[in-house]
């Protein structure tokens, strides 16, 4: 067996010039009214600097993550050749399924939400928002979810390449410039419309559309929510940040966890502060997304649906 090596190609590095060009185009086209896109200067700076910092953070933990993948691969169950087309199809599906559960965990459990929340802190949804990436993902350990793929026998380089392809795919869907893709595409793939819903803080849209490339997982596991034209997405998190400070963007939920742990009165409370749903509190004085959705549903039955186009502003 040849020693597994680092991937010869990194899709993310290769795509960086395309990312820059696409952002520049989106801004210019929006400037001339050709596409819908909203950019606010400080918000954009925050997104881009989060992306820049994420690259540095990834460099620090990336080696450990790849080494873990190589170590697990030593015990792999099957020999999966990188040269076989079926192997690429298999890794495409399995990596995307892994991504779905990683992403779902990252929203539904606070410890991992703390690492992912920064991606959702912008009240805007444009291509720059896509680059608002985590600084603490490596530390949060969610990369371990991909280790079973190494154990199965997918070469670590193959997994790394597919993870890169997924990240690159997810860049272009962060836009309001595309309203809907063709029906067959919307049915199968994650799209700007589906991911807008994922970034929305409207109670109706919370905790949905965790897909990476294929939207089929959300449809299979019951987390799919379609975007409704009559309910425009309001972007951001349930409690939006008070300023554009990137340190706050990167670490606010970690600080929140830490200060809650200091007040925990039992191990049980400490456990739920760490691994409960975001918004969990011992006395129910804060709201989880499940509570917010239930409250919203109650109000819908109490009064007829009222949609206001001004909500889009």
């Amino acid at each position, binding site marked *: 067996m040849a020693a597994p090596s680092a991937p010869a190609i990194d899709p993310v590095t290769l795509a960086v010039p395309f990312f820059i060009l696409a952002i520049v185009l989106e801004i210019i086209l929006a400037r001339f009214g050709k596409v819908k896109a909203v950019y*606010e200067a400080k918000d954009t700076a925050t997104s881009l600097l989060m992306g820049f910092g994420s*690259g540095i953070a990834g460099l620090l933990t990336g080696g450990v993550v790849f080494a873990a993948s190589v170590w697990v691969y030593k015990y792999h169950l099957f020999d999966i050749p990188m040269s076989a087309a079926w192997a690429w199809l298999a890794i495409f599906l399995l990596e995307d399924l892994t991504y779905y559960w990683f992403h779902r965990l990252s929203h539904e459990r606070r410890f991992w939400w703390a690492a992912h929340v920064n991606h959702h802190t912008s009240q805007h949804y444009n291509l*720059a928002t896509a680059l608002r990436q985590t600084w603490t993902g490596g530390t949060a350990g969610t990369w371990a979810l991909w280790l079973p793929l190494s154990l199965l026998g997918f070469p670590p380089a193959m997994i790394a390449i597919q993870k890169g392809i997924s990240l690159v795919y997810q860049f272009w869907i962060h836009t309001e410039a595309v309203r809907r893709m063709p029906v067959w595409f919307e049915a199968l793939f994650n799209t700007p419309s589906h991911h807008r819903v994922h970034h929305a803080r409207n109670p109706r849209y919370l905790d949905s559309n965790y897909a990476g490339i294929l939207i089929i997982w959300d449809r299979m596991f019951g987390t799919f929510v379609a975007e409704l034209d009559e309910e425009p997405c309001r972007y951001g998190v349930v409690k939006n940040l008070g300023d554009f400070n990137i340190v706050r963007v990167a670490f606010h939920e970690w600080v929140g966890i830490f200060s809650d742990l200091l007040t925990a009165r039992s191990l049980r409370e400490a456990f739920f502060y760490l691994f409960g749903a975001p918004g969990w509190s011992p006395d129910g004085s804060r709201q989880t997304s499940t509570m917010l959705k239930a409250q919203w549903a109650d109000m819908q039955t109490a009064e007829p649906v009222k949609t206001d186009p001004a909500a889009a502003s």
Partner: protein
Amino acid sequence: MDQKYIITQLVTLAIVAGIMGLVAWAKIPRATPALDEAEVKHRLAEDFPQAPLDQIWLAIDGAGAIARSGDEALLLFRLGDSYVSRSLAWSHALQADLIKGRYWFKFNDFAAPKASLALAPDWAQAVTGETI
């Protein structure tokens, strides 16, 4: 850390600066007209759907508002071209510091530690008789 890496990072930062310049030139943020009472009610109802509003005080620059809902104060303040909301105890809201014409409210929340509103000096007193 080799030289090539440092150069790559500097080039990346230069590109970030370039995009910032482009955004400044394009001027494509959301419009931020001065808030009126209806808009404040609409936005607070999104974030605090079950809180009845007893009274609203608009900031004089139209960039925010404070509302009383029983023992709670609900704040709405502009951030860039968007808005952020928070609640705090009404009694705490009355202790806001007045600095250069702006009232500073503290939230005990690392995600949004404080916010300021340009309120009329007698904003609470005028209506409730309470002293600030």
